[in-house]
């Protein structure tokens, strides 16, 4: 197992804290958006863009770059924050989220925003699109890898399982999926809306290598990804146990902030907690 020094992990954590702050600022200024699901996947995004992925913000079209697809497109604020922090565009531009003429659409748009690899928003599409990229990489004998974040609500979608079958059928060991298992979807707890468990068994039955981790722990995210890279002949899914709204006390585990912007008072408290 690779060892990471404490300083490196602390640095990633502080980038993630800032990404959380930007996400809340953007949603507050836009007056709408999805804070809960943005905050639950921030740590995975930061690990990907600041450590795991091979990419170059100055050359978003670099043909050998690793590809990322945010299947749960409503977490766009977190992705935009991390893209800006990485240098794909200025942090100042984050203020334009959801506004007329902005490159930062309410949900990711690949033709408008540098660094966005696939337009998403309608749920359940991203894994299949990632599979297409993985097939292309294999055809072209390229070594780049495909990373996809899916939400647990997307486990309701039939296409998710069609794509799960395709990835294992074509032995796509160049794709790694992070399942943001925050256990809440718009209408309530996932197990109440549509029973998903036993999720790990389901993915195993579909031919996937399955790893379960704490999705807010940088070391675990990185170690699991390294393990995935070593798996040959089958795709890997990392079930990341997360907390919806992670990092802002009153948003944690709250259904209320699935798709609602904080008001002024809530915003100020969030900034205080995130050190903004």
């Amino acid at each position, binding site marked *: 197992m690779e060892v990471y020094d404490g300083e490196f992990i602390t640095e990633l954590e502080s980038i993630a804290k800032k990404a959380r702050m930007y996400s809340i600022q953007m949603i507050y200024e836009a007056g709408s958006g999805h804070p809960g699901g943005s905050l639950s996947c921030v740590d995975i995004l930061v690990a990907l863009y600041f450590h795991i992925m091979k990419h170059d913000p100055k050359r978003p079209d670099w043909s050998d770059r690793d590809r990322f697809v945010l299947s749960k497109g409503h977490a766009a604020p977190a992705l935009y924050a991390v893209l800006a922090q990485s240098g794909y565009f200025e942090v100042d531009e984050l203020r334009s989220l959801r506004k007329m003429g902005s490159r930062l659409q309410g949900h990711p748009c690949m033709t408008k925003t540098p660094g966005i690899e696939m337009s*998403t*928003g309608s749920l359940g599409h991203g894994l299949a699109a990632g599979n297409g990229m993985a097939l292309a990489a294999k055809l072209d004998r390229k070594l780049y890898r495909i990373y996809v974040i899916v939400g647990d609500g997307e486990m309701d979608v039939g296409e998710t399982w069609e794509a799960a079958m395709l990835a294992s059928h074509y032995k796509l060991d160049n794709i790694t999926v992070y399942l943001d298992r925050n256990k809440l979807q718009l209408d309530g707890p996932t197990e109440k809306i549509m029973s998903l468990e036993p999720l790990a068994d389901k993915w195993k039955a579909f031919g996937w290598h399955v790893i379960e981790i704490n999705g807010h722990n940088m070391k675990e995210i990185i170690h699991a990804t390294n393990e995935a890279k070593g798996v040959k002949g089958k795709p890997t899914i990392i079930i990341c146990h997360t907390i919806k709204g992670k990092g802002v006390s009153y948003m944690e585990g709250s259904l209320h902030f699935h798709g609602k912007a904080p008001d002024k008072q809530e915003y100020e408290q969030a900034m205080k907690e995130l050190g903004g």
Partner: protein
Amino acid sequence: MAWKMESQRKQYGKALVELGKERGDIVVLDADLSTSTRTADFAAAFPERFFNCGIAEQNMMDTAAGLAASGKTVFVSTFAVFGTGRCYDQIRQSIAYPKLNIKIVASHAGITVGGDGASHQIVEDIALMRVLPNMNVIVPADSPETYKVIKAVAKTKDPVYVRVGRADVPTITDPEAPFDLNQATLMREGKDVTLIGCGIMVAKCLEAAQELSKHGVDARVLNLHTIKPLDEKTIVRAARETGGVVTAEEHSVMMGMGSAVALVLVENFHVPMKRVGIPDVFGESGACDELMEKYGLTVDNIVEAAHDVLKRKK
């Protein structure tokens, strides 16, 4: 008329194999219908560039999107009924919206599917596809034209929907003639009325024109193979020069080719017009000819529509 009957699908298969030889970026996806759509020809020649997605059309369209986003020119095939309505959201979100280089070539469109019945006879696919921003819609008239259309769309970078049928169709175009994707083809000159057809109805328009000539009516025939982008110039010119228009399509009269033509004329040049097509109903099992007759897609239907238009011209 003694036209040769040929398969559009066979020409699709042939064109795909040629493209596969010429270009390494061509990949093909199908959903367990490759022997019917003829993508099996490509699969046999280039197995590593062919991906059968199983009976999972939604998954197939998004997989196509990922391949296209990675620089591939992707041909996706299945029956028209499964390649449009069954995966409309995927086509909308992941193909049309990001304007990806994907060609949906759908076979078995319309009621000429025959015996399979209404579940397989899509009569609304042109409507569904033409309202999508960025999507192009093409309905080749016959087998040689299908070949030319496939070769032509492979050169574009845009999303395209190409509609072909199951049945063999009369060959009415010259395989050697040049083909312009963006321009309606003048099939017959005429000054009294214009018959505009697409797909298999172009041949019926030509037959109708000959029938009309026996009554001293000189009908122009246009092959409107490309329904989007629409060749408005040629349509308006025909309306101006002949004073009346009949459209004919193997599709619902609602929001198909005829509706597209009607809107152009309403906004640009008013002439009497009549749409020949399937009324607002589902099809049923039957032989092609029987179905064409019952649902109003015969030469007589076009002739009758032309007479109606001529009457209103006065």
